[in-house]
């Protein structure tokens, strides 16, 4: 009997955890809306910068949420609400669709990979993730995605290949981002000395003004340098990690940005999920250049250039031509 008492006492003890666990959110349209709205309310970084009245958004959208909404109806309402933020780092994902804001809409295309391959790249090589060639005694690299890893060995090889040339063109047009670490690896091979590249604050609390202390980021040269004189080509589809790469290049006087303004994506994206299993991302930091320019809406080039109808008809990439002229 004594043992049964001991065991019973222990078993009773085991169930007391339930007292601490709060109730799980319901998987209802209302609860999913509340969690999406509130998460952004507390953690989205750009309400003030973009002059968005998020409380007003709640007043406008909450009455439209009904308990008997279908999933496509709820999806439509959510994406309509998220569109207000005009932020390519805000997205919503389900098995039937992915929403993101088309930040590049209305901008000149300014890039055609197959056009370049036909008219400029010639006998190009693909070193790791880096398409590369030599055009008119100038080194050329096209890097299509910052998700593609860049290895130090690749950069060593290219440093040898491009040694003694007039300069180097890094083409990140249509590069929609990925892992910034790849950008750092490439940038270290272009840097002349350690420089302040940008400053970032992160949300660290639920109130609008809750941000971390500013973090001043520096980048220092490392490894064999790729070139002394560098041009980075950008267009409006250059986004996120591509935008950060362009931003850090602005700090180095030996690097010139040519092309269109980048598409932006200057807030670090953070992900979470809703009770119904839809995942979403949002921007949770603000980054500005040493001169105070916030990069959320993109980085301006040093030399603005676009494709022209005449250039295209003559098989000329007018942005690349501008870069080649700059480096001669």
């Amino acid at each position, binding site marked *: 009997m004594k*043992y049964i008492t001991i065991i019973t006492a222990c078993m009773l003890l085991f169930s007391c955890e339930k007292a601490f666990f709060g109730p799980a959110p319901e998987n209802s349209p209302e609860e999913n809306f509340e969690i999406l709205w509130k998460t952004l309310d507390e953690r989205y970084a750009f309400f003030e910068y973009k002059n968005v009245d998020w409380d007003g958004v709640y007043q406008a959208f909450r009455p439209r949420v009904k308990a008997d909404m279908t999933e496509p109806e709820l999806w439509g309402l959510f994406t309509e609400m998220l569109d207000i933020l005009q932020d390519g780092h805000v997205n919503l994902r389900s098995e039937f669709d992915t929403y993101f804001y088309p930040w590049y809409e209305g901008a000149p295309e300014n890039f055609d990979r197959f056009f370049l391959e036909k008219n400029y790249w010639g006998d190009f090589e693909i070193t790791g993730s880096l398409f590369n060639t030599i055009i008119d005694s100038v080194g050329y690299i096209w890097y299509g995605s910052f998700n593609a890893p860049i290895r130090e060995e690749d950069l060593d090889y290219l440093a040898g290949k491009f040694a003694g040339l007039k300069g180097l063109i890094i083409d990140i047009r249509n590069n929609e981002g990925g892992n910034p670490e790849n950008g750092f690896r490439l940038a270290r091979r272009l840097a002349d000395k350690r420089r302040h590249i940008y400053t970032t604050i992160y949300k660290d609390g639920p109130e609008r003004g809750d941000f971390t202390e500013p973090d001043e980021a520096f980048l220092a040269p490392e490894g064999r340098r790729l070139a002394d004189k560098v041009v980075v080509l950008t267009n409006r589809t250059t986004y996120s990690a591509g935008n950060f790469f362009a931003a850090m290049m602005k700090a180095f006087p030996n690097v010139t940005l040519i092309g269109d303004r980048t598409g932006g994506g200057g807030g670090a994206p*953070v992900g979470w999920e809703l009770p119904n299993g839809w995942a979403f991302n949002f921007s949770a930091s603000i980054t500005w250049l040493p001169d105070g320019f916030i990069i959320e809406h993109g980085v301006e080039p040093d030399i603005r250039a676009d494709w022209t109808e005449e250039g295209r008809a003559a098989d000329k990439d007018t942005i690349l031509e501008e870069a080649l002229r700059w480096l001669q």
Partner: protein
Amino acid sequence: MKSPFPAHPLLWGLIALLGIIPGAYTQDARPFPRYLELGLGATFHRLQDPAVSPMPYSGGPLGIYLAFEKRKPHSISRLSLGGDLGKLNSKNATELRPMASTYFQADLSYQYLRRLTGRSASRLIWFVGGRYRWHNSIRVTPQNDTGFISFFIANSINASTRMETDFQLFEREVKLGWTGTLPLLSHVIRPSYLNLYNYIDPEHDWLNERLQDSEWLTLNRFPGLQSRLELSYPIAGENQLRFAYEWEFYHYDGQRRVNAARHGFMIGISVRI
């Protein structure tokens, strides 16, 4: 879920180690018994962590532990290393909406208990003492994109108590023991408010960032309990089979509160060395 253990060389190495310990099958030559214990089992976890999801997650990772126990007439000391590995998910998860985390837990602890002679009447023996525990719980949640890793790391100084009693079962004298442990003072490391590290700074200091997000907590802000009910059944050579039911719970009352509970049913072999 496919078990990670059959192909794990470390596990087989530990089993082999237990098998070749020379003293394992000899009679006692030392005054104080010492045991090396290896256990495996099934666990059930329940987790409420807003760095992972607004939903609670639960699941049944596999558990394993290795322990060294030394018994003297008036004390017990135990050094143990345990780990769980498996999947946790939400009750709303579907094949197309996984709502899942891969869960890793690793605990290192050292416990020292002194016998309370005054309260050790006849067959019920009480011990009290302390325990140091390094608890690491890591949740990898791919759908959270850049915030895919959430963790809870706690270094705790605990108060412990234990009671033991012996009785006859199948003509053998078995030992029933219960150990309860409370964290008195803990240093807890959690992810930042956003569950994000400063990855856009090329020179970011990951460890320093984590320490900035850590804090010291006393029992009132980190209440928890670890309970282990075990039955030791003697087998040949003064070795033992150990059947244990482990339960633990904690509530972290810091930035982004966490509730976590674990139930473990473990079977171990305790080899006298």
